[in-house]
């Protein structure tokens, strides 16, 4: 009944329409094509058990859209990286990325894998080897390497108050944390064996991840409390309100200075 020419024409038209609605027509003109979840306006009457329900097309094919997945919030994709990726992390890190980035960049180019139980086991084993394996077999992590690089170019100034006391490991660790933001546990820090009492230059060694050691020059100096240092703030303090913190600091240290500061403020903002 259908001639071959009709078949050919139908196929040609189908091919043309396929091409046009993907490349030529812009998004505003194409009709909505998404995953929709619909429900019926009219309830279908219950049928006996075992029998299919009787549907009347005029009544039971009227639908309303419950949910359209294109309007749902886009969920992030969880992946485990296999190599160092800039701005995301190193090998073995679990990252949450947007779905298009994860699928087109990471998974397509083998930079990441899905977090299936088998893959997670593999990376957990690698981590275990790092912690418990022999010192020769362990490899430094990416973050460990970055820390080593950072420590190499660092000079440490340990402050000592004029009273008589030794500089111990805990004091140096605390100074590391407050001044440079580097957390050094006491077992990773090695000071010289002689007790440090006087001001001067010394060495200290920091071991990163139990694999690499960095020697950092350390100078013990007296505490200099300059006007600038008085109001020097740690990064978290900058998040809190400027003036509130300022006032609190003054209340705690010097009430007279606080009063003069308030008078100044009042002059500036009447």
């Amino acid at each position: 009944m259908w001639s071959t020419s009709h078949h050919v024409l139908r196929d040609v038209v189908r091919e043309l329409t396929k091409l046009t609605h993907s490349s030529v027509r812009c998004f505003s003109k194409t009709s909505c094509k998404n995953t929709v979840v619909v429900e019926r306006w009219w309830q279908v009457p219950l049928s006996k058990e075992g029998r299919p329900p009787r549907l009347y097309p005029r009544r039971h094919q009227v639908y309303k859209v419950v949910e359209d997945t294109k309007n749902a919030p886009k969920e992030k994709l969880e992946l485990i990286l296999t190599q160092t990726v800039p701005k995301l992390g190193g090998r073995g890190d679990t990252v949450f990325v947007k779905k298009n980035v994860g699928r087109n960049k990471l998974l397509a180019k083998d930079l990441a894998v899905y977090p299936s139980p088998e893959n997670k086991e593999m990376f957990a084993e690698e981590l275990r080897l790092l912690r418990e394996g022999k010192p020769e077999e362990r490899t430094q992590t990416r973050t460990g390497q970055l820390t080593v690089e950072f420590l190499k170019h660092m000079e440490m100034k340990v402050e000592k108050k004029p009273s008589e006391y030794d500089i111990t490991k805990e004091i140096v660790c605390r100074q590391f944390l407050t001044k440079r933001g580097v957390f050094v546990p006491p077992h990773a820090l090695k000071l010289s064996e002689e007790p440090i009492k006087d001001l001067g230059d010394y060495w200290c060694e920091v071991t990163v991840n139990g694999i690499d050691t960095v020697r950092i020059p350390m100078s013990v100096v007296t505490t200099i409390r300059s006007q600038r240092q008085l109001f020097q703030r740690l990064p978290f303090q900058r998040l809190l309100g400027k003036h509130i913190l300022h006032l609190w600091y003054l209340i705690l240290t010097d009430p007279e200075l606080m009063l003069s500061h308030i008078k100044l403020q009042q002059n500036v903002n009447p």
Partner: protein
Amino acid sequence: MPLHKYPPKIWEALKLKQGIYSRLPQHYLRSLEQTRPPTPVHWKPLGVKFRANPKTGHKERVQDVPIPIYYPPESHDGLWGGEGWISGFRYASNDKMSNRLKKVWKPQLFVRELYSEILDHRFTITVTARTLNLIDAAYGFDFYILKTPKEDLNSKLGMDLKRAMLLRLAFKDTQLYPEDPAKREKIYAKYKQFEIPAEEAEWVGLSLEEAVEKQRQLEHKEPEPLFKSCVEKLVKELAVQKLSEPQLVEKK
């Protein structure tokens, strides 16, 4: 006197019991019978048989009524992940008392390149966003194809890919990465749980017509020329005749 010998409703089942259909392998016929309804994609199932009526609060029996979805022939050339066209009506501005308008909801399709590890090939397939999400949930394209049952894949291409993957896993020594034994072991260990014997893997995902054709090809024999059978018969007859003649032994 009844109109038919057997009621028409069982004619389809009876047809599968006679002729070449009866000679199809048993596991294939069983797979044809074990159809279950597809997982609901475009409607939310209630899931329970009884629930409390939201208005009165009394217990009532409820049933899931699936929404009829149309799967166009293009859906079998791609992996649409159970989505299809919903053709029906809607009320203008969602108001029951206003006009009833015809409406067809269609899924948004993308053309994506998906790589299969077992088959070691990049396939350009039309997929939907839901398919890509399902692939992520199954932790891999091969896992998705091998895990989802026939009714949920809902695509000839999907079943063909499944059949190819299962066959390749069955003949792993010859077909799965013939030049790279290390990679072969790794991939095989990953997908070992889905392996099935080669005879069953050959019939996975075949439609009834394809299966019948395959069975016909298997049973096909070249017709033997009548000459051969006649010659054999004649030889047998002559041998019998020769043996039945009494043997004359000359007296010396």
